């Protein structure tokens, strides 16, 4: 279980290039680094649920990103807070 304040990297992975899939990790955050704000609970993995497969419960985290680090032009001045599953996060 990751703790609040843990820095994490969102995996720079593109399963949609390999075939049909259902992903709840937005494109604009793949490869981005953020900070875990808190654990929101454990939920069945939607990537399996969407295809009627057995879905293992995964930890879901609220992860905070500095929006000015995402688009390459140091804008906008904001924080972006996103729900991400543990399977997409690597501690840094």
């Amino acid at each position, binding site marked *: 279980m990751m703790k609040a304040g843990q820095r994490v990297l969102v995996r720079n992975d593109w399963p949609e290039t390999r075939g049909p899939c259902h992903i*709840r*990790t*937005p494109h*604009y955050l793949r490869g981005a680094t953020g900070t875990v704000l808190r654990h*929101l*609970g454990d*939920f069945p993995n*939607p990537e399996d649920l969407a295809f009627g497969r057995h879905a293992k419960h995964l930890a*879901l985290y609220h992860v905070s990103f500095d*929006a000015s680090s*995402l*688009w390459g032009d140091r*804008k*906008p*001045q*904001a*924080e*972006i*807070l*996103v*729900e*991400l*599953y543990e399977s997409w996060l690597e501690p840094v």
Partner: protein
Amino acid sequence: METTLVDHDRLLSALRALLTAKGITTPAEIAERIRITDTATPARGAAMVAKAWIDPEFRTLMLTDGARAAESLGIPMRGMPPLGVLENTPKQHHLVVCTLCSCYPRAVLGYPPFWFKSNSYRSRAVRDPRGLLAEWGTVLGDDVSLRVVDSTADYRWMVLPMRPSGTRGWSESALAALVREGDMIGVTTPQIPSGTPARTE
């Protein structure tokens, strides 16, 4: 591929018949769910906001467990995703978006407004949120941090806006009438209608 309303109707009928035939759900359950969805409106969220403004205990419950707070007001939450409530303060403003699709706290706000599902709202909320807010007439000071909440997974999010000044002594129902759906998405903030007599505080 072009589809017509008739195609959608046929697809829907076939899906409903299959769900029933396979014993996954019943026509009565579907009808009940449609009734619950159709009766939800932003007035429910507004009632929660007004109560939170006058009742500190309810406010604490709402910020800790939005679904339990909603249920305590008689709002049906069975089968609904967890409800998270984001508290606006003088130092922090929240804006809710679902960049992936149109996740929305329907139990407390009803159907999402058309623009919430638009590509332009969904992309600009994360790319140019201050510009987007300015177009709604919501200009944040430089000292107000902006937190954009991208609703990507199992939670649904609503904003608890700040109570407008000049509303001291107002009844719960008068306060609830001030709160619009945009205030609970975060594109706007509650305003006292112009023409309301100023009150001394």
